[in-house]
């Protein structure tokens, strides 16, 4: 039963992935001028002889003499069969090389933020719902509002400013200067921890705020339901009652909305890492966008969107495991 469900969901993904790739191909093609003209201009600008045979080779490799839809097929074929995402003009290296250097850090930080977000939001949400209108409920709600209203980049700037003025340490980058080129060691790891914690906290805060609100509202709804009253009337201990049903019900929508939380986290990661100059995709993608280095920008978008789609799939499978109604094709929500 579960196997069938997973297979069905996987098949549904294929058209979505194709659609995403088409959208991104269009975005890559949006700026005036194509791959080759930019390449030639760049070569001429740097005073290099434009190698004719090189141009013929590139034309063939990317199908640039063919109509646009064929170019799309060449582009996709190169990605799938050779892992070739095109070339970055700005860095004069294959995009795949830049991606392999920086993408793991981006994904790692985003996933860590997701875990931290849940770790903070779920307990606070439970507390706020069970202690509605208490002092701490108001405090958490206030913090939540601030988290929603202060954009990540501002929060990054303000916190770095305060840390800088109070301690004189500039917490930008993932490693401090003396460890930047050092090999991995325990000291380097310890040095990285506060910086990592800062990034993860800043990225997570706005998501946490929304999630606390959601968790609180869901749980409050559940707590009013009759089965809770029945359980309480039977004399079930409050703690057991809470954990047995309402919390499980309230956590469900969080799992099912991973698909929307992940893009939010990656967006946040990008901006915050630009401010904090992290060694992730954020800073280089920003520069790629400004200089219209579209293959680099597009490839990042493509990978991140595909990962999100896969993340949604995983969340759907998790949900099917947690919630038997979905597995048996019952209620969708």
């Amino acid at each position: 039963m579960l196997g069938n469900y997973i297979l069905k969901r996987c098949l549904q993904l294929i058209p979505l992935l194709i659609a995403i790739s088409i959208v991104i191909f269009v975005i890559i093609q949006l700026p005036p001028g194509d791959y080759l003209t930019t390449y030639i201009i760049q070569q001429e600008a740097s005073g290099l002889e434009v190698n004719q045979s090189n141009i013929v080779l590139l034309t063939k490799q990317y199908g640039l003499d063919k109509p646009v839809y064929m170019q799309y097929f060449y582009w996709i074929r190169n990605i799938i069969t050779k892992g070739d995402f095109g070339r970055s003009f700005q860095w004069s290296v294959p995009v795949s090389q830049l991606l392999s250097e920086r993408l793991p850090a981006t994904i790692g930080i985003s996933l860590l933020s997701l875990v931290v977000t849940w770790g903070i939001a779920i307990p606070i949400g439970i507390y706020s719902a069970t202690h509605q209108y208490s002092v701490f409920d108001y405090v958490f709600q206030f913090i939540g509002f601030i988290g929603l209203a202060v954009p990540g980049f501002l929060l990054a700037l303000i916190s770095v400013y305060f840390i800088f003025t109070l301690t004189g340490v500039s917490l930008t980058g993932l490693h401090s200067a003396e460890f930047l080129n050092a090999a991995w060691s325990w000291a380097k790891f310890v040095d990285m921890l506060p910086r990592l914690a800062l990034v993860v906290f800043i990225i997570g805060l706005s998501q946490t705020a929304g999630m606390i609100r959601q968790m609180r509202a869901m749980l409050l709804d559940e707590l009013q339901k009759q089965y809770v009253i029945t359980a309480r009337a039977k004399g079930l201990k409050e703690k057991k009652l809470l954990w047995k049903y309402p919390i499980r019900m309230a956590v469900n929508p969080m799992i099912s909305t991973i698909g929307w939380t992940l893009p939010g986290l990656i967006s946040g990661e990008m901006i915050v890492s630009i401010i904090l100059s992290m060694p992730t995709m954020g800073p280089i993608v920003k520069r790629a966008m400004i200089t219209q280095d579209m293959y680099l920008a597009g490839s990042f978008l493509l990978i991140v969107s595909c990962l999100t789609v896969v993340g949604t799939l995983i969340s759907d499978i998790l949900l099917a495991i947690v919630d038997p109604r979905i597995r048996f094709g019952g209620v969708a929500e």
Partner: protein
Amino acid sequence: MSLKKKQKAGTYEVASQWKLMWWKFKKHRMASIALPIICIMYLLTMCCEFFSPSLPLERYKKYVECPPTPIHLWDHEGTFHGPFVYAKEIGRDPETFRKTFVDSEDEIVPLGFFVHGSKYKFWGLWETDIHFFGAKESGGAYFLMGTDSLGRDLFTRILYGGRISLSFCLVSIFFTFLIGLTLGGLSGYLGGIFDTVVQRAIDLIMSMPSIPLWMALAAAMPKEISQLRQYLLMSIIMSLIGWTGLARVVRGKILSLREEDFVTAARLSGAGHGRIIAKHMLPSFLSYIIVSITGSIPATILGETALSFLGLGLQAPTISWGTLLQDCQTVETVAAKPWLMFPALFIVISVLMFNFAGDGLRDAADPYK
């Protein structure tokens, strides 16, 4: 009148849906604070020429990067002067050779209301030189929030930037509304293949991280275009991605309304699709749309400022809160000139207020509460 009194007087039963909403909205404490503040902010920025003490491009060359000048009423000896700021003595730091600004003990710059300052054209219509509040003598060094690296008054620039930022979100919401309402409405009403296509499109957009997508679209925007076109293009880009939430709300509502008796009755009487949607369905879920729109204003403000801050949204010379924040990209600048962060305060306040107002509206529009 309290709710009970209204019930007694019989006004409650005959009150329209909007009236009921308004009563409930007024009872929401945060929202009733937020709404006047939003109105004040729009008033300040709409008439920013009048309320700002200076002009956005006017340079005080002597006062480059001058810190904010706090307003006093009494001087050191306790004599009352009315509002004034101390004149600045310009010196040099003997160690860093940076310019320093020190309050002079005996020279003051008196401030007043409706003072004569730099000439401007109010809304481009009539010329005047009256400013709401400022230095009584023209050219007096009064900088409520300091000056930037070119010696321009930051408070003035924030007000002018607010005009762009706060109107930008409305324009963008208008486009969002247009796309979301049309696609969501048609998708719910027609169903079938059209519905499937729109729903898949929504899935597609929601699965892409919005900031990089905005950045990519903004990056593809032609560079050499007029400020107005850039403004419109940016707002369309924001709405191209933002319409999905509204479309889902509209579709859900239409789906549930489609089966209602009054819709069937309208259809049997020969009303066309457009008429049924606009005349019969729209009024019954308009309140939800307004709630959804108010909820998406903060996201639009944050998106615009983030993009402009990164240099991919609105570009200088357009003044918006985001472009103003471009000045504090590095920690060093922020540490040396913290007052450059004042635009951020305005962003946070406006987003908070819109959030509160949105919450109040949502509660007010929910008839079961």
